[in-house]
């Protein structure tokens, strides 16, 4: 199915052609935990039971400069939700997550919402027990909810399994006419950066763009320093749009408290290199907060004003 992209999606792509950089948001999980999510609680259920917290999170990120906020739907697939006996609520919880963020975005003229799609946690056959058609349907249900709720793109993120990522891209491509972003986690090993399934940044560009992603990149797993390294590699192999979202470092423990070591100022300094590497979508992953986003916004605004 080749369909014209919806206007917002097309607008974002056009703006990128004009060198605009889009700022995404900071962490969702840590924000929710600071606002009443019990350890082990279901984040997506908050879309239904604590919608005011989800709305206010979007509000805070938009206020601090995010152009795009992610929906609270990272684990919103049936495989994750059935751990909470919510396997039948996939469509509803995803739709709610999108509607909540969308409502906040509409208070501005040029703010957008991307639907967050995390890994299923299952392995496809023959490695695991889940068939391709079953997982296809699972992604389709999640994406339908997000689409109905009004998202402008799908961010298929924190991906480790190549075939699963390809499948998610395929589902998005075949059924919806909004942006598709595919973002993987890389680990630095003795031979460089690889996903757990052995994909290099270079190979991921080829595979994910060929599958139909509009934007490819990386999130999670690393602090800003390594993400800058990966961004440099990615940019050296493609002119197409890229997305990078770093963690605020690797968490450390200080007396029972978990600390993400990278301060907003530290990351702001490192993120200058993301702009040099012409990364088109920049945001924060685990451990980043509204202050990180505010400082990233300072950088990005300066860039966007100069174009």
């Amino acid at each position, binding site marked *: 199915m080749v369909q014209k992209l919806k206007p917002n999606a097309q607008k974002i792509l056009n703006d990128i052609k004009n060198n605009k950089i889009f700022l995404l948001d900071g962490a969702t*999980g*840590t924000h929710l*935990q600071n606002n009443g999510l*019990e*350890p*082990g609680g279901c984040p997506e259920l908050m879309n239904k039971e604590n919608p005011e917290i989800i709305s206010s999170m979007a509000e805070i990120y938009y206020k601090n400069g995010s152009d795009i906020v992610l929906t609270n739907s990272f684990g919103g697939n049936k495989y*994750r939700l059935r*751990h*909470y006996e919510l396997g039948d609520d996939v469509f509803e919880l995803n739709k709610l997550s999108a509607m909540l963020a969308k409502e906040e975005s509409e208070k501005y003229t040029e703010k957008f919402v991307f639907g967050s799609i995390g*890994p299923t*946690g299952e*392995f496809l056959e023959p*490695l695991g027990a889940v068939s391709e058609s079953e997982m296809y349907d699972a992604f389709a249900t999640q994406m339908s909810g997000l689409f109905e709720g009004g998202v402008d793109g799908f961010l298929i993120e924190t991906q*480790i399994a190549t075939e699963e990522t390809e499948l998610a891209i395929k589902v998005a491509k075949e059924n919806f006419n909004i942006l598709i972003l595919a973002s993987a986690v890389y680990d630095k*090993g*003795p*031979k*460089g950066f*690889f*996903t*757990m*399934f*052995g994909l290099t940044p270079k190979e991921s560009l080829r595979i994910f763009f060929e599958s139909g992603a509009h934007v490819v990149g990386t999130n999670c*797993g690393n602090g800003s320093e390594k993400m800058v390294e990966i961004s440099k590699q990615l940019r050296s192999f493609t002119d197409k749009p890229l997305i990078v979202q770093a963690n605020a470092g*690797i*968490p*450390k*423990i200080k007396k*029972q408290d*978990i600390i*993400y070591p990278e301060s907003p100022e530290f990351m702001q300094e490192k993120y200058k290199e993301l702009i040099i590497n012409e990364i088109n979508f920049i945001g924060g992953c*685990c*451990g980043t907060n509204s202050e990180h986003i505010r400082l990233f916004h300072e950088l990005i605004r300066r860039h966007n004003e100069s174009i």
Partner: protein
Amino acid sequence: MFEHEGLSKEFEFVTKESEIKHIGNSIQNTSLKMQTIAFALIQGDQDTVGELTKECLEEGISANEILDNGLLNGMSIVGVKFRDNIIFVPEVLISARAMKAGMAHIEPILSESGIEPQGKVLMGTVKGDLHDIGKNLCIMMLRGAGFTVYDLGVDTSPEDFADGFEEYQPDVIGMSALLTTTMPNMGRTIQYFEDIGLRDDVRLMVGGAPVTQEFADEMGADAYGESAVDAVEKAKELIVLLKDLRD
């Protein structure tokens, strides 16, 4: 190098001197059949591993010999290739599955003769954490390496771990966490084992995406598994230490 050409080729991936010596010696004087099993395991060919293991047992080769000279030699090379970024999680899982196909024939004999397998490991994701990808990977790898593994699933409280210990008497308990908010529950579980006087009876191992060696030390864990393959290595080391202590 070795009698089996394919295995000799695989052995070229072993480049650290100490490992060349150690793994090389271990393979050197084994029969072609054992080398064929090791090679099939590296290739992830579960049918061949299963069939050859059965055949060897029928020929009167001891279960221990097949385990040490065939399966485990293959697994050593798999571990090296994984660590050195030559193969990745899918290939390792497929080799682990082949190992399991061999173990299916070997385990009944080992337990009949009263020989314990590699050891017993009790696994769970800590309280408050429902993420089991990493834990399940570790379980597949541990089983593949010949351990008996008991799985307590997700959201495992310190009390559940203690109950599991009483029930299964494992040598090692492996705790997994994906969320930074649930990581401290590893420390709480370790403390709980102290409180009820069981701390010295078992070795506690931790792992998970946000977990680091530094964190494991801070929590007072006995070992940190950086990856599923590393978890197997650490479990082996812990069990050797534990057996020395018991002797």
